[in-house]
């Protein structure tokens, strides 16, 4: 048992004085603690950890959930097959493209917006609330109605692009063309999640005390210099946190893209989660898909852990 680090003051406040202890009837604090935490841990063990262990087991077999045949242990063959499969590397590339550009645009636009909102113009609260709306909506439904906006002839998106570029609105298909489809999902995700980055950046900007700028002003630091030596470094930990959240979420991305493109055309927008769904629930290669799931999980977990270490270093500075 590792005792929680506590400073003497909190310890003094929590320790029950002996006279009081006698008065407290019923269960000891420890028993209550376990009764309170128990159900949560049990639920997570049953619905998260047990399935995870089951997945690990399945990943070493050739089990197919739609057939009743003898299950064979095939060792690490599923893993070998996945890691040497060039198609899966294409899915990984599609995911990387999606991750990189969504985070790039969301950070760029999100930070700019937060910076502007922090200028405290009249009514900034109201407009912030309006801007935030898209991120709270159901991604599947959002994907579904953006599909409507992306229709080549009748869609609003194509019409507006055509209006500004003078092209024919039916001359390009956002969802149907190999070149444009990867960008169409980046656009929708950016539309939806920029407010998330914006909110976190805004919290960062608001956490910078005024006196730092005042001191810089006294030292005659230019506004530009202040921006790069005060604003950016102080917001960085917040920004990195936002990137962490978006990174994990978009690595798991499924609902929005499935509704928009279904992974197509071809497999240009087939992100790993969509590919995994196909293997598991369309081709029913359960064992293979389990190995795939484990690889994905280890990847997210590994990347996230490294990233959190970096984030803590930045925070310490």
């Amino acid at each position: 048992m590792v005792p929680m680090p506590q400073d003497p003051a909190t310890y003094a406040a929590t320790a029950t004085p002996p006279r009081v202890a006698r008065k407290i009837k019923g269960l000891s604090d420890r028993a209550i603690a376990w009764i309170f935490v128990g159900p949560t841990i049990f639920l997570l063990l049953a619905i998260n950890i047990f399935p995870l262990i089951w997945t690990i087991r399945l990943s070493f077999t050739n089990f197919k959930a739609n057939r009743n045949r003898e299950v064979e242990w095939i060792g690490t063959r599923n893993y070998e097959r996945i890691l040497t499969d060039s198609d899966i590397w294409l899915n990984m590339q599609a995911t990387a493209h999606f991750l990189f550009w969504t985070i790039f645009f969301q950070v760029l636009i999100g930070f700019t917006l937060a910076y502007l909102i922090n200028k405290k113009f009249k009514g900034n609260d109201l407009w912030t609330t309006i801007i935030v709306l898209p991120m709270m909506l159901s991604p599947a439904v959002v994907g579904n109605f953006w599909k409507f906006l992306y229709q080549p002839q009748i869609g609003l998106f194509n019409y507006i692009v055509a209006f500004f570029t003078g092209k024919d609105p039916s001359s390009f298909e956002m969802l149907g063309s190999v070149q444009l489809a990867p960008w169409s999902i980046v656009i929708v995700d950016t539309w939806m999640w920029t407010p998330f980055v914006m909110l976190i950046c805004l919290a960062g900007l608001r956490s910078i005390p005024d006196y730092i700028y005042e001191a810089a002003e006294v030292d005659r630091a230019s506004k530009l210099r202040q921006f790069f030596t005060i604003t950016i470094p102080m917001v960085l930990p917040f920004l990195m946190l936002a990137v962490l959240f978006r990174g994990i979420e978009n690595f798991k991305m499924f609902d929005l893209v499935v509704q928009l493109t279904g992974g197509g055309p071809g497999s240009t927008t087939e992100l790993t989660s969509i590919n995994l769904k196909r293997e598991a629930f369309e081709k029913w290669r359960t064992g293979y898909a389990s190995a795939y799931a484990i690889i994905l999980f280890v990847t997210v977990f590994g990347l996230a852990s490294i990233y959190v270490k970096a984030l803590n270093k930045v925070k310490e500075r």
Partner: protein
Amino acid sequence: MSSFSVTEPTKRTKWFAGTMVIVYALITMLPLAWIMMTGFKSPADAISYPPKVVFEPTLEGYVNLFTTRTRQTDEFLAANPPETWYEEIVREYDMVIAGPSKFGERFLNSVIIGFGSTFLSIVLGTLAAYAFSRFKIPLADDLLFFILSTRMMPPIAVAIPIFLMYRQLGLSDTHLGMILLYTAVNISLAVWLLKGFIDEIPREYEEAALIDGYTRFQAFYKVVLPQAATGIASTAIFCLIFAWNEYAFAVLLTSGTAQTAPPFIPTIIGVGGLDWPAVAAGATIFLLPVMIFTILLRKHLLRGITFGAVRK
């Protein structure tokens, strides 16, 4: 406060910043406004080129959303004049209303599963959060991290064994199965958020109550819970929104009885894929509650979306 501050932006800066933000807000609202408008268009107006901004509003989309219709012969139509306003709308296409569509049921499923899982997550989450906040629990930090890490798994990865497990237990496509699943997913959010809220309540209140002869349970129930009410309410809304919006598990584990609205709405489009007003109407009805909740939540929004990591 001094009348002049170096950190106070100039009027011109404010004006510029305000304009830029408002322009962004208007652009970002355009898709949503368009969908809501489309819900009130006729199918012909919805797919017209150039897109129609001015049109004659009709409730056709909403009628189509909630009903199933069949085509009828002229004699039948002549013999049975329309009795209601919605019958009348359908008659324009020589159709009659055959019965209600599945949308109502699916919407109700969303409500049942959403509220059921929210209730469970909050009950379990509050208890666990209180324990983590107030008691010395061995390996508390590791347990908390474990609770959070369950959120990192791609839903599809978890869905494979859950699918098999539910098939064995007879929980596939049941409300109970979905409620338990969403509770398991939401509980990490609930514990983390609620622990933050409870941490903020001074311990002295409970200490005082304990000295006055309250038991731990009474102190928790009569002192802490009322203090944490706002936190619990906003956490509940976050859990509800998540369960409401969830798609991946819903599409893989439900198909009929317990299917929620998100996997259903895209199927409204029907054969031929032309009934966009009905889809838009469905999306509007489905998204509107979330928008209202978001506005109610705005003070706690940041905290909710970052699992309590950023508190403002």
